[in-house]
């Protein structure tokens, strides 16, 4: 399944205002669904500075975003990159305490390498499930973090439609250069997910698709057994 990874997903960071509770609720519903059938392993993936395996016991250190809040989890170093840390947080919040692995994928990783990583992760355990953390464009409006790029909304709409249709080939073929220009940091995670689930057209469900702060957020479930039977 797919979740976005903005810092505001961590409720503690937004102050007294929950800011976007519906996004958090959609993620919580999706993750509850993901872990509801007692998977043998949850694989959390998301873009980071490099492709690496992270300590499964590690957590997001909220102090990097809000020093007043202190470390977000057990005092293990180094803290997880944002995408994996938020994924780990969602698992914790869903009450999942089973096995997890936390492979990150480099934000510049080419599509073929992402697909290969996905395929490898698909075989990590017989009954593993995948939580891919990544966002759409951050250039959807003049108030967006990356200001307006007219290509952003069509790009995000295309991704959303591909997810809606279970069109893994389109996710796998997303242009890394365009995604980088549009600040769509979820691109490598989408392609790891496509590599893990493909080939085929899984049934999907979209729980959230919007960009209220100029960044595209998409929460989606993929009904295919993973790895494919």
């Amino acid at each position, binding site marked *: 399944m797919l979740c976005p990874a*903005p810092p505001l997903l961590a409720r503690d960071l*937004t102050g*007294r205002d929950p800011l976007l509770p519906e996004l958090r609720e959609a993620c919580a519903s999706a993750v509850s669904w993901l872990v509801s059938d007692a998977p043998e392993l949850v694989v959390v993936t998301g873009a980071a500075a490099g492709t690496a395996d992270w300590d499964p016991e590690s957590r997001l250190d909220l102090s990097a975003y809000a020093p007043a809040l202190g470390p977000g989890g057990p005092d293990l170093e180094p803290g997880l990159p944002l995408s994996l840390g938020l994924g780990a947080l969602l698992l914790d919040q869903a009450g999942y305490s089973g096995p997890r692995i936390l492979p990150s994928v480099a934000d510049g990783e080419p599509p073929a390498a992402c697909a290969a990583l996905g395929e490898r992760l698909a075989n990590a355990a017989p009954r593993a499930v995948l939580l891919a953390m990544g966002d759409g464009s951050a250039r959807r409006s003049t108030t967006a973090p990356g200001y307006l790029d007219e290509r952003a909304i069509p790009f995000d709409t295309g991704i959303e439609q591909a997810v809606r249709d279970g069109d893994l080939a389109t996710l796998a073929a997303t242009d890394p250069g365009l995604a980088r220009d549009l600040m769509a940091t979820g691109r490598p995670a989408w392609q790891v997910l496509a590599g893990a689930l493909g080939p085929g057209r899984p049934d999907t469900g979209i729980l959230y698709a919007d960009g209220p*702060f100029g960044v595209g957020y998409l929460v989606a479930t993929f009904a295919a057994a993973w790895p494919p039977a």
Partner: protein
Amino acid sequence: MDRQPGPLRLGTQEFPPTRPLVMAIVNRTPDSFYRPGITWDEGAALDRVHTVVAEGADVLDVGGVPARPATEVTVDEEIRRTVPFIEAVRAAYPDLVISVDTWRHEVARAVCAAGADLLNDTWSGWDPKLAEVAAEFAAGLVCSHAGGLQPRTRLFRAAYPDVMADVLDRTLTLAERAVQAGVDPSRILIDPAHDFGKNTWHSLEVSRRLADMTATGWPVLVSVSNKDFVGETLGVPLEERLAGTLAVTSVAAWLGARMFRAHQVAETRQALDMVAAIKGDLRPARVLKGLA
């Protein structure tokens, strides 16, 4: 007589040490120094109560006698100015903390019977029976420093070897006496009383050294709103003292003061909330910048 900072109990309310409190001034006088007569009419005074409550006031401070020397106000007249108004406020706001700025025990008795929760004794225990009234009615008491001035007089060439030492000595002595008189210690505040028996240098000194007072563990009230030491420091007339007032308010909050007597409630609330957020005592209202 140092103590651990604890909750402040006033009326039905209990306030933790981390919550800065705004005490909104409502004068039932025709001749107070700041915007004289603005709430002389009872309807106007009640309208101000509604406004300051909406703006975030935690406490009302009702005064029937201006601090400065002016026309004499008798006990009966002070009661006439304050008691019906307090009854009206109490009827409208059953749990709002009502303070009364008075030094006379006869007035104190009448206002407590009418529903007041706190006696703001700006004149520093001039009438020793005030603490007895506070004890009798389970009311709170502000123990202030006025440099030995008798009520409604101005300082004349005040001098102190160490003004903060004098402030501490007087306020802690009064607090101790109040406790001995039976006042609940969790209902007592101490107040350096800026401008009272102090020139501008003295008021700046007590502002700078306010941590000496907060370190005692007694909750500290500061009353600095639009006062002359702000005006003299900045060289500005009465109507241009808000920025200076908020600066002193912020410094006092940073140094641990807990209650802030104010004319401009909304602005004071914002300044205090900002300081509380810097201290880590209050979460920001809404954080989005950089987090989307």
